[in-house]
């Protein structure tokens, strides 16, 4: 684990923030995960994940514009930091290493 410690759900959220690029704010992230990955995301769970990611400095955020549908409340946009990108790469390369190490026979279910 080490300094790039990241949970499964956190990883999903972080990747989605990257996917949405300039448009990554609360509801958009939630809806994107729900549509793309077909899993239910509660506002509470997502919020906690975002907060943790920010604390780990994988994410930065800034306030954006306010809209009427939000009752005049501003949006908070998230962006992945270079450090966050490293963490994602680390997770991917870890997995890649493991996949490569699996002998072909292990998945031979006949």
């Amino acid at each position, binding site marked *: 684990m080490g300094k790039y410690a990241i949970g499964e759900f956190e990883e999903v959220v972080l990747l989605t923030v990257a996917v949405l690029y300039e448009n990554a704010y609360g509801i958009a992230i939630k809806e994107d995960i729900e549509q793309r990955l077909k899993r239910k995301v509660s506002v*509470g769970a997502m919020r906690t994940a975002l907060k943790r990611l920010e604390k780990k400095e994988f994410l930065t955020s800034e306030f954006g514009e306010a809209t009427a549908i939000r009752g005049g409340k501003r949006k908070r946009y998230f962006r992945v930091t270079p450090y966050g990108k490293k963490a994602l790469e680390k997770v991917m390369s870890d997995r890649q290493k493991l996949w490569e190490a699996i002998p072909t026979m292990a998945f031979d279910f006949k």
Partner: protein
Amino acid sequence: MLISPPKLPLKVLKWFCSPDLVEDVEGDLGELFRTRYENNKFRAQALFCLDVLFLFRPGIIRNIKFKQGLNQYVMLKNYFKIALRNALRYKGYTALNLFGLIVGIASSMLVLLWVQDERNMNSFHENGDKIYQAFRNMKQSNGVVSTTSSVPKPLADLVSDGYSEVDAIASFSWLMEMQITYEDQSTVEEGHFASPEFLNMFSFPILVGDKAKALDELNSVMISRAVAEKYFGENWQTEALGKIFKLQTANLSVSGVFENTGPNSTLQFDWLRPVQAYYNANRWVNNWGNGSFGLYLSISEEEKADRVAERILMEIMDHTVDNDAAGDEEVIIQKFEDTYLYSNFDNGVISGGRIDYVRIMTVVAIFILIVACINFMNLTTARSSRRSKEIGLRKVMGARKNSIGTQFYFEAFFLTTIAVALSTLVVILLLPYFNGLVDKSLSLDFMQINTWYFLGGLVLVVGTLSGSYPALLLPTFSILQSMKGGVKQSFFAELFRKGLVVFQFAISTLLIIGTAVVYKQIDYVLNKDLGLVKENLITIPLQAGMAQKLETYKTELLRLPDVKAVTASTGNPLSYGRSTSSASWEGKDPSAGYEVNVIITDEDFIRTSGMEILKGRDFSEQMQDSSNFIINEVAAQLMGFDDPLGKDLSFWGINGKITGVVKNFHMSNMYEPIAPLIITCIDPSRSAVMLVRIDNNSGTVLKSIEQITAELAPGSDFSYEFVDQVYAEGYRSEQTVGTLANIFAFISILISSLGLLGLTSYSAEQRSMEIGVRKVHGASVLQILMLLSKDYSRLILISFVLAIPAGYYVMQDWLNNFEFRTSLNVLVFLVATAIIFLIGVLTVGAKSYQAATANPVKSLRQE
């Protein structure tokens, strides 16, 4: 305009959410809420609450900051811990307390659900608050005003054309039966003739067909989803439209299908046809003197409605001035939404109806809740001396009065929350049985935000009610006394507690008296001599075309060994409403108007129904009685004859003589006086039902009757009703209220006794030393029993002094609704008080006996 999410959950969110997140989170939730709101507003509200609930997690909750010098959180944690320890240490008391609260809260929740459902009746019409119904108040010359919803058609036309305040009118017939045939299937369905505007005014969902045109064509008929499914199977949505139903005389084309009317509507029907079709076939409706259909008005503003009420009042009188036979009458309007709960008219003025029961049950629910709260108060304050050391120590350590108050509030709310949560479970478990009891389909819907408000409100009310007194009283203990142990409670506190016990038992007694009287009245109604023999008498509605085969039908039926007598008549004599105002007789004041009921039947009517002829003779086949009449006692009195026999009487252009007087029988419910009546056998073929007197109600005779009916009217479905069952059914709501009152009386006694049990065991414990000393000095068990029981027994007796006059007043008032009623006698009160006294004394006695028989050594050796 932007819809805002529910306020309360939002406040909660703002309270717990950490400040740097709150703006963003609130925005997110708001956006979600508004998107969901488009689809379903109740769901959106409920989901909003759930979201707020799920946000309550570490990471989002604001940090509790100690550096501000507030130790609220720590104190609350301490209160919680102490409350839990205390609850677990005295398990018996806690169980007693919780059990009382749960029973009380659960039962009042059930009642309040019922009340809410009653109030929701007819509330699904979008413009329901703008619909008014017209009623006619007809003044009889004997001073009685009878109210009916059938108004003359010309009045409807006049309002429609000439009243600018009225946006639209809809005429709506009484419930009619219609036999419809499609291919080889035939059934009798009930429905109404209605104006095309009816569909716009009311919000019955139309599933198939064009709402605007469905009732335009004279030969069109709209059917309910149930009928459509019956005739056209699963594909009714595509099949039904345009299909032709055969009627006896006409063909009807299906122009639409509406959703089944459902349990929330008082208007129940399976078909609708255009009123014009009825008007064309019945010219009599065009007369101002003939009441015909019901009339609904759509009026957009209250203030306009007042003007309409003023204008419409004398319309019928004004248009019938030339008509001598016309009565003295007024037209009033009532809000349609009120017609279900306020359906009783007393002399032309609305005098209540089901609203009475709704009110009674609301009061009962509140009483039960109070009784449960009193238990909590009494047990907490009585046992406070156990906590006196704790209170004293807290004070020494610097606790202020109000923080000790807070502690006891906290404990009350803590227990109440548990109790409400458990009662909700109990309610969910009991709802199916309760639904069976009150014949409704109530449910607790957790997707509705109101349910959460209701539960939250319950916690707040019960917590405050039961926590306030301890929280006010306990902090007043002086430090010294409480540290020494054994606070002597003030005289006032003791008195207050006793007062509460008296109040509890007074309520229980009141409920028992109420139950007894309701049961007595129901018993009276069901067993009253109605003037005819209602047992083993069945009514069979006559199918189309059967009126011509009456004689054959009768002879065939009479051949059955178990059939005693058969008669055809215009209706079930126990609920009869066909009347005329055109009757005149020798010596009648020509200007006086009376409504007189008319039964058209045959010669066997009196014999079959088991009525009694007081004067003169019954109809008989040999005497050619078709122009002779039998009247009832009320009619004889009204006409003012000393000897009515042989006097001339005429109505509907039929002239004849009175040959007999029949003993009064009830044609309406017990709320109404018996109406005057004329019985004639002029034309039995106008009959609507067959009355059959059978020997016993075995299945075989009913089977045989069905066979005979099927042979004579092939293809139609056979139905029958027992007259006594129909009669009992009419008192369903009274019986329901009786059962509910019975259950609640029981619950109230149970809770009060639990409280009493707690109090007695506490005082026995307190006085254990005294009892020990007395026993050592030779007091007998009986003496000690008396010593301990007499205080509380006296309280119960005092409660009777309060309950009896209140019970007498309330129940006499209820009985006064009935024209025919049982009397309130001493026995009711004696039985009620005896039951309560016995239960109370047994409770106190049992606990005291335990104390009195304990070995004195145990209590004395401690010092």
